[in-house]
């Protein structure tokens, strides 16, 4: 019981720290890309900026808009945050640092992360705001349809590794990362694109689409509830990068350095890629995004599975 609790606390601590670091990193990367300096005043090069932000958000008034569907409005931030914490159960930071090596780890993490959509939709519905409602609707459509190519690309990895356990998949890559195999490179691309859509990042940030829907589903949230959405977004980003690292980039494997360092390095590398993408690309439209999922990604993923499966069986 106590080790479980401890690992849970460690996960929450890591989430808070990681989200703060990612917020700082995001602001810095955006600043560098845009030839700016970013936060500079709090701490060395603004390293304490996220802490200042957190204090500000904690001290802010929690505004309850008129006419909200209180239960769903109030619960939504928790529904977004809790699956994120749950996903940490099976993330293999190093050979030993894994809370529980489930034998269906991949299935578990995919199903848990897609629970987020519930919270987002509740936020959109409960806010009593038309922009939020549109955002919630969009995100439900988006996350559910991108689940298909995502799972199809993960399926290929499972086929290759022959196991559903996260550690097992990493062990299967001890002779070479999966991303180096051509059919899995394609799978990685598909995974990367669908995962971007899954966490509502640019170019698929249409549920929050700032220039269209003001802030989408979290328009009406303020203070700590908004912070929870924010933390969930950044932690989600870490989780999909961790999955990408585990499934395609060899997990904690690497020379010289300890496993956990390699794991974090690779994950944050993927995150930097995501951030770079965010600050480069425009947003796609709703219908274009859906047709991209169903007409491009899904057929390619299916074909990929079909062809490489045929080779595997042969």
């Amino acid at each position, binding site marked *: 019981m106590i080790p479980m609790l401890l690992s849970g606390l460690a996960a929450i601590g890591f989430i808070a720290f990681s989200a703060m670091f990612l917020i700082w990193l995001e602001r810095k990367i*955006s600043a560098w890309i845009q030839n700016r300096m970013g936060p500079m005043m709090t701490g060395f090069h603004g390293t304490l900026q996220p802490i200042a932000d957190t204090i500000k958000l904690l001290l802010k008034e929690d505004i309850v808009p008129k006419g909200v569907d209180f239960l769903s409005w109030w619960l939504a931030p928790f529904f977004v945050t809790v699956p994120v914490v749950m996903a940490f159960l099976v993330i293999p930071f190093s050979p030993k640092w894994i809370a529980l090596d489930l034998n269906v780890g991949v299935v578990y993490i995919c199903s848990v992360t897609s629970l987020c959509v519930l919270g987002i939709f509740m936020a959109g519905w409960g806010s009593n705001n038309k922009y939020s409602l549109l955002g919630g609707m969009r995100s439900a459509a988006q996350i559910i349809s991108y689940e298909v190519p995502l799972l199809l690309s993960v399926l290929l990895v499972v086929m290759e590794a022959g196991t559903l356990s996260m550690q097992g998949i990493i062990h299967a890559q001890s002779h070479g990362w999966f991303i180096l195999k051509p059919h899995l490179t394609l799978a990685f691309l598909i995974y990367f694109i669908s995962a971007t859509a899954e966490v509502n990042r640019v170019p698929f940030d249409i549920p929050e689409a700032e220039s269209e829907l003001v802030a989408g589903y979290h328009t009406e949230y303020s203070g700590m509830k908004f912070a929870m959405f924010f933390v969930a977004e950044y932690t989600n980003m870490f989780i999909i990068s961790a999955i990408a690292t585990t499934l395609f980039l060899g997990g904690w494997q690497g020379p010289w350095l300890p496993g956990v360092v390699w794991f974090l390095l690779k994950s944050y590398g993927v995150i930097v890629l995501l951030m770079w993408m965010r600050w480069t690309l*425009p947003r796609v439209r709703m219908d274009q995004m859906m047709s991209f999922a169903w007409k491009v990604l899904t057929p390619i993923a299916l074909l990929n599975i079909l062809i490489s499966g045929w080779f595997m069986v042969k």
Partner: protein
Amino acid sequence: MGDLVTINMGPQHPSTHGVLYLELQLDGEVVVGCKTHLGYLHRSIEKIAENRTYTQFIPFTDRLDYLASMNNNLGYCLAVEKLLNVAVTPRAQYLRVIIAELNRVVSHLVAIGTFAQDLGAYATPLFYAFSDREKIVELFDSICGSRLTYNYMRIGGVSGDIPAGTEQVIKDFIKYERKQLIEYNELLTYNAIFLARSKNIGILSKEAAINYSVTGPILRASGVKWDLRKEEPYLVYDQFNFDIPVGTVGDSWDRFKVKLDEIEQSLRIIEQAIGAIPEGNPVSKVNRVFRGTGEIYLRTENPRGELGFYLVAEGGFNPTRCKIRSPSFSNLSALEELIKGLNISDAVCVLGSLDIVMGEIDR
């Protein structure tokens, strides 16, 4: 058709470019009806003009199209000069051309940046555009002492000669900006997502454009080869070589591309003007008193279209009537028809491509 949702887009909304208020009727996400409400920035500048002398009104023209203050100054001063028969020295004319074209570049850069922002390219193109803009704004700061509301043109000239070394700064900027234009093309113009978002969205046909009295880059994007600087040259525009970029379809992408191409043409004009600038005294003193009678309607090619000043004077120190025919006003009137049947994302895209400035719509 199911139930319609009415959405109030604005007056506070990230992409209405100021305080425009659109009342959108949505069927799902498709806009079926749009009602435009203006006036949140109405300061009755035309009434102010009737109570100020001709010189005193120049600072107020800055506040019309605040992204192209120099061009507004220029339009107003040209109108007053024609009304009251004031002569302008050749050097002042060349300076005005250079300054007005530089401001056109500035204005188009902002238009490009904000359009990309509307399409969801978070801030990056906007910041690139603004850091280019910063170079000219700095230059304007050193010429006239202000960064946004310049108040540089005077009736009969300009407020001060350009400081030494300005020519070199402008030449350097032209070289730099040409490089930047290639970068914009790579980052935005031929980007697959950008193309998918703006191609064939909000098509404004030639006939509709003329019927709506749309002017400027938006008219040219609809395929009408019309530029006041070429067709009815004012100042010394007839002495320069430049092309009129024309769009083919009249969609949002064309409107964007025409603006991007116009930057290049403006740079060409500046390059020629800076080489041919004559010596002389361009400065016109403020304490000249103007009065006269008559009426005049004079248009100039602003970055957003044709800015018209209709001045009626009855002999006093101030005009009896000063009607400002602002380009954005007419351009925006086409919006209601353009966005019908489009997605809400496309509505934002069309609005961004129309490139309105609320300061001159509400006046």
